[in-house]
């Protein structure tokens, strides 16, 4: 990979490269801000192993900032738990903190190790009689950003209304690219996509926006306005305007506080929720989300889950590219695994679990 351009790497690969750069000089103090967000399971495990080795030698002080603490908890000598006001809820040895402050942390919406969401979405068998045609059909898609280097090699996929598909696979396998192809933001080199009867890459933008929503992996690249209020209201119809306040409230971005803030100055988790809100408020039939859950504490995660659940119950189709095993467990009824631009597994969740 020596000569690979770093900007060509997938989001997860870039994350790992940045980590390698920080680890290489063997610093005495290493601060990692959500290092496993966007990493595949293998990458996250490898990272934790590397951090474990550093901890073993006591060569460096590690400060690890994390929401998803399952992997990080066993590494910690000291846990510092911060509340919304920035004041510590508790600090001490991991076991002591759990014994003393588990309830207070739970109340503040902080994930505890080994904890699951309170309300996973109910799984439903697909209603076979509902519609004979898939909402979106991808046929023999091939796509590459550079000639001779296809990212998506030959993918055919049908997705029906009401389905909740988790797109999984290692970093760089082509999940994000497939997502953009499905909603017509990229045009395939070969093959074709049909969304609600049309090629989504050729329909007018207004039509596309009614049928499909796409949330980018990097929220900053999708922001179009200077304030949070303008951002979430960008291009909405009157009916959609009416949903803005309630939705923002539920996503812990109440407009009476956030209205005039700059989207770029929000925290990573807030940016993620704002980028989701901009798309969820439209209630599109096809919802493609790229890493929807990174940077979320338990409150943010459960809020998102509830909103998604309501929307999906109305018959929308969800395709989520994700490395978050918890999200896959809580939401997906079908898992599509991508490897190097091909579908290597496509099965309902019940079978996958068996």
């Amino acid at each position, binding site marked *: 990979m020596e000569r690979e351009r770093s900007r060509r790497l997938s989001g997860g690969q870039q994350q790992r490269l940045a980590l390698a750069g920080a680890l290489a000089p063997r610093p005495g103090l290493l601060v990692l801000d959500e290092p496993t967000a966007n990493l595949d399971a293998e990458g996250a495990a490898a990272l934790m192993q590397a951090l474990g080795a550093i901890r073993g030698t006591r060569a460096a002080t590690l400060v690890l900032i994390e929401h998803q603490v399952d992997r990080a908890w066993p590494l910690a000598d000291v846990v510092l738990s911060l509340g919304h006001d920035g004041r510590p809820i508790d600090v001490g040895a991991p076991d002591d903190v759990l014994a003393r402050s588990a309830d207070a942390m739970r109340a503040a919406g902080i994930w505890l190790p080994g904890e699951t969401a309170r309300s996973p979405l109910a799984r439903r068998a697909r209603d076979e009689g509902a519609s004979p045609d898939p909402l979106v059909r991808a046929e023999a898609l091939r796509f590459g950003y550079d000639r001779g280097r296809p990212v998506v090699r030959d993918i055919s996929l049908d997705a029906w209304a009401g389905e909740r598909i988790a797109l999984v696979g290692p970093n760089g396998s082509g999940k994000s690219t497939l997502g953009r192809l499905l909603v017509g933001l990229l045009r395939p080199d070969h093959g074709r996509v049909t969304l609600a009867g049309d090629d989504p890459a050729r329909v007018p933008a207004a039509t596309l926006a009614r049928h499909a929503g796409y949330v980018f992996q*990097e929220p900053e690249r999708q922001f179009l306005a200077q304030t949070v209020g303008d951002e979430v209201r960008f291009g909405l119809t009157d009916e959609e305007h009416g949903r803005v306040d309630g939705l923002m409230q539920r996503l812990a971005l109440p407009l009476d506080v956030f209205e005039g803030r700059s989207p770029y100055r929000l925290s990573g988790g807030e940016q993620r929720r704002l980028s989701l809100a901009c798309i969820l408020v439209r209630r599109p039939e096809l919802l493609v989300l790229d890493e929807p859950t990174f940077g979320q504490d338990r409150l943010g995660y459960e809020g998102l889950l509830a909103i998604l659940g309501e929307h999906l119950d109305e018959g929308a189709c969800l395709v989520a590219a994700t490395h978050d095993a918890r999200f896959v467990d809580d939401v997906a009824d079908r898992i599509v695994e991508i490897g190097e631009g091909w579908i290597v597994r496509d099965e309902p969740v019940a079978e996958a679990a068996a």
Partner: protein
Amino acid sequence: MIAERLEVADGQLDSVLGRTSPVVKLGIAVLWLIGLALTLHPVPPVLLAGAALAAGLTLGGIPPVVLGRNLAPVWLAALAIGLSNMLFSAANGDPTTATLIQLGPIRIAQEAFVAGVSIMLRVAAIACVGAVFALTTDPTRLADSLVQQARVPARFAYGALAAYGAIPRFTEDLAALRQARRIRGARAGWHPRLFVGLLVLAIRHADRMAVSMDARAFGSGPRTHYRTLHWSLLDLGVGVAAFSILAIALVLGR
């Protein structure tokens, strides 16, 4: 796309010119440019352009198609510059000059023609030298070489490299912003807001880049290097050859 043009293929990097120290190549390019500026004679630019192209194609391993694709727009520009210099030269209105071409009201004096051709050849030659340099030089190696062999401050060289690496990012940011507009129902095409977005993303990126460089202690003292570069006989050979070609060209063009 800009992004494609910044890529240098492995074949070019592993060639004789690709393995030559970037600082040597940069020095040659600058020397040749100074040489070209010193003369109005048509022979030096033709000779130097020819030498650069021949070296690029043989010693540099640049595929002719790639070289042609990179040079075509600059050569067109050179032609346009040459023609406009020819047409709008003051000599055309001077009755004491010899008429070379008379087309209706348009008169081109011999001096104007010579000046136009001369400037066209020089611009084309500069383009050839620059293209061969760029197409055989990996930007990272150039920065390494500037720091290790030319003693340029690391903070400056790698800062410039980081800025250079951010250029393709612009095209990607722009693509993402346009996709973001489309998925939210805004018409495709150009919108002033896109530039605001690009600017914001560029500033945010520069900000993060500066923090990353600080986190890696740039500018704080002596550094170690991942790739250690050494002067080689190849550098000497290429340098001497290039200097000789320049000298011959200037002598012939006196």
